[in-house]
């Protein structure tokens, strides 16, 4: 019974926090450009409006299923993330399960966009999967380093091992892994300079180009879930998680804030430059960090 209530409550909290993260993202962008930015409920208005569209284009069965696959994947990820007071399914699956699940949305999108037969969408999804090959390498190395350092792959235990002062955080214990992980999650969120697959001015939002109405609303929902889960994974791995929501949420917002604030000063890289960068710098830093962990 407790598990059932947690399974219902955890995605809801994730969605609420995710909406606030989206709002923060847009507000920060507006402030950097010296604008005022959207009102408080703007992310919710967008999603409700898209679900309230009266006509809808579907390009086939796979297109329909893919949207459900996207949303199912991101909701599933939130169930495996331990948060204060709730562990959900996190004791049944570790960080490796989580990394598998985090690929489901991209694969679902690839299946659905393929059926739309829009060239912009096909280019976009091929770029998205290429970028995934780029950022997964440093991310996996960083996660492996953390797992070796603490001798466990359980996220709750990794976070628990970092309690007892700021200097116990992964950020100060394994600084090289933390830097590599930060760059990897920046690419994972698809922000500039790694924004190769959305690229509105070049390929018209790529995978989303044929998504209209309710499908687009689902993608907006997915984006808020994704911001939450990616930020929370980094918080658990390197910032010691949190004993309570009051301790956890500032860290979560800080992680996403770093990513969002850096975004605004960069243009967009080409695809091969992104792969080259990701396989050279973050991967190199992560390997150095892994070596230090192994030597210790």
């Amino acid at each position, binding site marked *: 019974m407790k598990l059932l209530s947690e399974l219902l409550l955890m995605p809801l909290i994730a969605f609420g926090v995710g909406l606030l993260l989206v709002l923060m993202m*847009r507000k920060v962008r*507006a402030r950097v*450009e*010296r*604008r*005022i*930015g*959207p*009102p408080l*409920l*703007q992310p*919710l*208005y*967008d999603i*409700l*409006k898209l679900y*309230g*569209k*009266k*006509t*809808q*284009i579907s390009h086939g069965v796979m297109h329909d299923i893919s949207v459900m696959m996207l949303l199912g994947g991101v909701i599933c990820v939130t169930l495996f993330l331990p948060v204060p007071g709730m562990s959900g399914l996190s004791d049944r699956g570790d960080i490796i399960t989580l990394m598998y699940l985090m690929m489901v949305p991209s694969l679902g999108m690839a299946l659905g966009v393929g059926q739309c037969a829009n060239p912009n969408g096909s280019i976009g999804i091929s770029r998205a999967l290429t970028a995934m090959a780029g950022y997964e390498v440093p991310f996996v190395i960083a996660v492996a380093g953390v797992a070796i350092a603490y001798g466990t792959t359980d996220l709750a235990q990794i976070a628990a091992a970092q309690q007892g002062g700021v200097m116990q955080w992964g950020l100060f214990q394994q600084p090289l892994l933390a830097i590599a992980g930060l760059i990897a999650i920046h690419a994972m969120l698809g922000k500039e300079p790694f924004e190769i697959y959305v690229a*509105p*001015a070049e390929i*018209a*939002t790529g995978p*989303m*180009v*044929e*998504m*209209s*109405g309710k499908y*687009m609303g689902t993608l907006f929902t997915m984006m808020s879930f994704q911001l939450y889960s990616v930020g929370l994974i980094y918080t658990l791995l390197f910032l010691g998680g949190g004993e309570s929501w009051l301790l956890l949420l500032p860290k979560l917002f800080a992680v996403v804030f770093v990513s969002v604030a850096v975004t605004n000063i960069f243009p967009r890289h080409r695809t091969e430059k992104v792969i080259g960068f990701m396989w050279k710098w973050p991967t190199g830093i992560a390997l150095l960090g892994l070596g230090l962990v192994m030597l210790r």
Partner: protein
Amino acid sequence: MSSMTSYPIYRDPDTAIGCRTVDEQERSLLRRVLDRIADHCRARSLFVLHYCTGCGAIELPPSMTSRFDLERVGMQPMVTPRQADILLITGYLSVKTLKRVILTYEQMQGPKYVMGFGSCTINGGMYWNSYATVKRLQEYIPVDMYIAGCMPRPEAIQQGFLQLIERIDSGRATAWQDYYRRYDWYLGNQQAMFGEQFQTPTDVIAEARHYALASAETTGRHTALLEQQLQQAALMPVGPGRAAGESQ
């Protein structure tokens, strides 16, 4: 646009999922509350697709950026017609660009709104006697709001957007349904402009029936011409070899 209730509504027995405009008395309390919330959200979240092949695009950056930040009222630019709510047409349209506007408009998902920007979309403006320029936009696609002026300044654009937001909020911006209800009239004007061969990839009549928005004026003599062309196209032989009857 003329009133929506005057047309007899054509109803297919199989399409009960439509979005027919229900009379005020007929709606239940829950339905009214939900419609109110939906209209409220629609009015506060508008994705704008700019169609700027004419002049006047230069007035949009000041209204979108830090001077008069339109994101304060939830408006942001979108790049594909599938995701957009407002089709903003700035300046004049030539005969060639009007075709693209119609294709773009038919790809958008309703509720969708069209804004004509500048006096050229209203009556041709300074191109009133040009052979290549479209005079009145509303004859080809339904227009919700015009912003008059040559050029309208960013303040006028904001005023226009705010008026449109108010209309959407009160549920009065229903011009997009008029395209389905009187498709024959719009298609007739499009055929007069582009010739009788003109057709678009979107099957507007089927959409109108599916969403229960078809009326007696959805089909007529202009759409009959469309079906005639489709039948001819279906009878036409495919490929050069078989056209000449060479194979066998």
